[in-house]
């Protein structure tokens, strides 16, 4: 059971057993290019989350996502009880948030909270790829971004999935059965697609799995290149929607000497980090 101590603050008192605990509710909203993610934390622990589609405006998307996340916990609280921080490519549009932080800030916060020993973070969302070097205290030391060429982004995989007429999951699964990995020489996604089509038509020895492995290798090479620019120190925390792709992770691991750690819900790392940030801010 929860009691509100003061309707002006976001601090709740929770009755558990004979004790009255003060808890703090924070929320994070991450409006990305393809999806909106919302999380609700109670004292930094995940209470609820929601991943949904974008809406007509970023504000609306954020509002709906938070409402859905609240619905999942039977509307135990209302929006005004939560300190909300927003993030993401379009997070600035969420005007009801107390603060907006950049995606790198949010992601480095959550990566550090979950894996205090990690110094390198790789984030691959729908369109943007970034490599972040973080310090012992979780602050950002260096960062490299790719938002100019889709060949190094999750879009490359989406595009190829459409070309191959497979879902992202199907591609991932089939890639693990690859025997040889063909090299795709074109950088541009559009030209790479033509190369793939030629491979399919001209090389009868290659299986679908081989070709998908070739596609992953092409992306992995670019991503590793980005990581090298910030320097790889210790294990890499892999965040963002693309981190759900086992096949691609395998391709990356083959090119790296260090392990790749994937949190349970990699797509939520931005929102999670924003909600953690809210906790430190209040």
């Amino acid at each position: 059971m929860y009691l509100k101590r003061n309707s002006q603050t976001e601090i709740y008192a929770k009755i558990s057993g004979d004790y009255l605990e003060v808890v703090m509710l924070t929320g994070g909203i991450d409006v990305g290019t393809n999806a909106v993610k919302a999380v609700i934390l109670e004292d930094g622990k995940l209470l609820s989350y929601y991943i949904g589609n974008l809406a007509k405006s970023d504000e609306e998307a954020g509002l709906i996502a938070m409402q859905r996340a609240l619905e999942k916990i039977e509307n135990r609280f209302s929006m005004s009880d939560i300190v909300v921080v927003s993030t993401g490519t379009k997070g600035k549009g969420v005007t009801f948030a107390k603060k907006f932080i950049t995606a790198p800030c949010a992601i480095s916060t959550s990566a550090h909270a979950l894996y205090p020993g990690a110094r390198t973070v790789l984030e691959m969302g729908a369109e943007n790829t970034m490599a972040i070097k973080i310090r012992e205290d979780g602050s950002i030391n260096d960062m490299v971004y790719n938002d100019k060429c889709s060949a190094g982004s999750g879009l490359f995989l989406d595009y190829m999935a459409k070309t191959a007429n497979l879902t992202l999951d199907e591609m991932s699964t089939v890639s693990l059965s690859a025997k040889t990995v063909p090299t795709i020489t074109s950088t541009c996604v559009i030209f790479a697609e033509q190369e793939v089509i030629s491979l399919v038509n001209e090389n009868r020895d290659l299986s679908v799995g081989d070709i998908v492995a070739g596609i992953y290798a092409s992306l992995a090479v670019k991503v590793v290149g980005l990581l090298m620019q910030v320097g790889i120190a210790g294990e890499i925390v892999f965040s963002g929607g693309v981190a759900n792709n086992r096949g691609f992770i395998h391709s990356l691991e083959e090119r790296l000497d260090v392990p790749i750690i994937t949190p349970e819900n990699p797509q939520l790392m931005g929102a999670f980090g924003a909600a953690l940030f809210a906790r430190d801010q209040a």
Partner: protein
Amino acid sequence: MFFAGVDIGSRATKVVILEDDRIISHAIDYSGFESLKSAYKVLDMALDKASIGVDLLDEVVSTGYGRIKLPFASKNISDLSSHAMGVNWHYPQKLTLLDIGGQDIKAIRINERGRLLNFVMNDKCAGGTGRFLEVIADVLGVPVDEAGDLSLGSTKEVSFTSICVLFVKSQAVTFRREGMPVPDILAGVFESVATQCSNLLAKVGYDNKIILTGGVAANVGVAGKLKEKTGVEIVIPENPQLTGALGAAAVARRKYFNGKRG
């Protein structure tokens, strides 16, 4: 005397037929996978229009993407040479031309005789090419040959952060969802194309005008933005898509007369 130039492009095959120093016919067809078949087909179309038979051709020169060997052509010249000569046919002076093709963009500096002085090309990135425009026009539900005119109705500046086909496509979809009018989106896209092209042009330099060729030259939106970006006159030759074929025909003619002299 009859001369023919055959240009096998990445998207279309073009033929131009000259009688002495006049253009008497031309034809164009969208290349399927079989370039040779396409070449024969388009040559027949052009011969038909000129009302002459293939045996009346004194010299045939081919050009184009992939440098396919055509059995009926006595010579094959590079894309660059054919474009340069094609532009030189209408503008016999030292100048810079910008060729925006289906899959690449070239900035070419030539002398008054159509010889190459300098050249720079982007063929690694599909951004700004004809393919790029097709993808964007498609996602906005606009026929690609109407996109240029439509963009002229733009009232508001929109900017794109990248020239990448997929990123621009995604941004365009977002803008559309937010209710931005299509002319504004198109104008923004063409602005990006103009920036991409002007970067290339700066590498070869240009005078008081730039000749625009290639399939995209017909797009008034791109031409307009280019003019704004470079500050110089953008000249579009008649039938810009035929420039390569015309240049090849011009070379055929020159080769024939050089042969006669020798």
